[in-house]
């Protein structure tokens, strides 16, 4: 089901997930199979400190997340993580950034109300006087073709992670 106008949420059944993050935190999230379309023409921009805590969010980021700005700033970036995303994708993100290289990928993000939105994300390190002082992530509207490919790919990766 696709929620086309980004306004009042469409009713759908919620499923509860328990997510365990790399920093040891455990989070219970409610997920609904409702997609919110990416806003036309916008870029979703956020910045974090070196440990992945959100320090800046533009209005498009706030709007799409479903949170208010005050709920986002100071939170770990994985507040947006959707349980359908394989852990390996985020390991690859941090490994790539750790090598000083930019990371790009298709990401399914979780909104506060349990619905989701897909983005094509690019993350880079913010280097000032030779030191990494944080990371910037810029998301743009993804190709629907690539999203369809990722839905299958990520499902297989998740299945592998569960069995291994």
């Amino acid at each position, binding site marked *: 089901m696709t929620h086309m106008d980004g306004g009042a949420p469409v009713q759908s059944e919620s499923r509860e997930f328990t997510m365990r993050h790399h920093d040891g935190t455990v989070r219970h999230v409610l997920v609904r199979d409702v997609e919110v379309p990416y*806003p*036309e*023409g*916008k*870029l979703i*921009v956020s*910045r974090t400190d070196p440990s992945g805590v959100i320090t800046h969010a*533009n209005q*498009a980021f706030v709007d799409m997340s479903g949170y208010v700005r005050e709920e986002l700033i100071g939170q770990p970036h994985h507040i947006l993580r959707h349980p359908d995303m394989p852990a390996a994708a985020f390991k690859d993100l941090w490994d790539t950034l750790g090598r000083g290289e*930019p990371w*790009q990928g298709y990401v399914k993000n979780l909104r506060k109300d349990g619905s989701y939105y897909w983005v*094509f994300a*690019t*993350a*880079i390190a*913010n280097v*000032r006087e030779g030191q990494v002082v944080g990371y*910037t*992530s*810029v998301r*743009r*509207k*993804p*190709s*629907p*073709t*690539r999203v369809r490919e990722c839905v299958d790919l990520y499902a297989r990766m998740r299945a592998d992670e569960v069995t291994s």
Partner: protein
Amino acid sequence: MTLQLTVSPDFSPDHIAGWYVFNTWLQRQLGVRIHLELYDDFDTQRKAIAADQVDLIYANPYDAAMLVREKGFVAVAAPVDRPDEAVIAVPAESAVQHVEDLRPGSRVAVTRDPDVNLIGMIMLEPADLKRDSVVLQQVNSYVLVAKQLLQGKADCGFFLKEAFDDLSGPIQRQLRPLVASQISVVRHVLMAGPRMREHLPVLTDLLLKMHSGGAETGARVLEALGLKAWEAQDQEDTEFMIDLMDTLMR
């Protein structure tokens, strides 16, 4: 020593005289000789920057990284309410209703404006289109982009939003915007090179007061440039814009 001021070649032709007025005003205010050089294209301007001929530049955001990281420029000020936004438009009667309707091989009319072309290509990504899957038709002005569309020579065109809004009514009515960017933080920036360093505090102060009438005729000079006012652009603002452009160029 005569310093050199230059302007990103994508400036509106309506404001050529305005930049000469600005240069005269600046020389009087700073008490230094400044030569205004307007380059015809970005390549020639970049060669002049590479040869250390430029001291003050109203720079396209696309060039900001090179100016800061390779040439030691610093941001001085940026125009208020003048973000660089892009519009993708099609002929009004086109069957294309959404970007996703465009197909590989589509003919895209563009100018040489690097940041508009970058943002335009990003807005084509949802249609799985990249530079190598479309036919780019480079022309010299946004009016010519519109002409390509109206003559059926292009399927869509990239416009600086401001240039699209400035098209005459009859032309605009024959076009239809498919999508417009709303990025807000990508904008032209006035940047100063190493030889300008000693004048920076005075220059910054002058620019930030220009709109308030504190400096003689400053408001009228701004009007000639088509700007409301300058606002401070600190180094971190510029680094942020460079980081953002860096993500978009990938």
